[in-house]
């Protein structure tokens, strides 16, 4: 159903996430991309919230990283791949981190489970020698 060959990446934007630039750069670029594609406000809000959440995790746990946003098309439908990477300490228990209520910094502990609710696929990997990569795919309703 979702063969990689049928999924074509068309446009990709990336922005560094740093304490000084915060998330404003990636949010501005993402908004411009959504406007150019005439994405409706609700899915745009959901995508921006996912970006914010991933970016917030980068800033809090790693200090800096990068977020990339790619446009996907598959059999006439539009989607997005969001990839957040950092060189921080990684996530000790990835499975637990995706559950609601779990937080490594005493926050609300809802971030990754909320992202999962809003997305079609979430892949979390610890990187070597250290760091985290989170990939989120969200397909939009026609």
């Amino acid at each position, binding site marked *: 159903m979702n063969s990689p060959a049928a999924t074509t990446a068309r446009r990709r934007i990336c922005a560094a996430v740093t304490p000084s630039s*915060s998330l*404003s750069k990636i*949010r501005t670029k993402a908004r411009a991309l959504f406007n150019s594609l005439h994405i409706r*406000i*609700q899915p*745009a*809000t*959901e995508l*921006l*919230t996912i970006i*914010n*959440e991933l970016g*917030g995790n980068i800033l*809090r746990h790693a200090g800096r990283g990068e977020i990339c946003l790619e446009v996907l098309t598959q059999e006439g439908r539009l989607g997005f791949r969001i990839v957040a990477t950092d060189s921080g300490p990684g996530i000790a228990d990835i499975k637990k981190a995706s559950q*609601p209520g779990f937080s490594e910094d005493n*926050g*609300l502990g*809802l*971030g990754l*489970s*909320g992202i999962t*609710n*809003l997305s079609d696929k979430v892949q979390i990997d610890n990187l070597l020698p250290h760091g985290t990569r989170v990939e989120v795919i969200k397909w939009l309703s026609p």
Partner: protein
Amino acid sequence: MEPFSTFSLEDILLVSIQEEIDDSSIEHLLHHLGKQVSKNKTRAVIIDMHDVEVMDTFLAEHIEELVSFLHMLRSRVVVAGIQVPVALTLTDFNIRLKNVEFALDVEQALARLR
């Protein structure tokens, strides 16, 4: 420039939050509000969120912290102006903003507080 602004209406304080608010700005806001509330004997604070187009768990956590802080200072708090797409997304994140009173906008919040 701080990503928030405050405005006094007699014994009610209106706080407007901009989307870019971060951990350190919230600290400044808490200190600023603490001084204003005790100096002006503020009985209620309206937190206006109509400029916030994206609300994640971090901002939700900050808002809960702000509300809790103001409750400790015996101020009633009303959160106003949460946009519909933001509210829908918060529901998907299972964020409930506990112990928070809501109003559609600042006008409704003021009517409720008078």
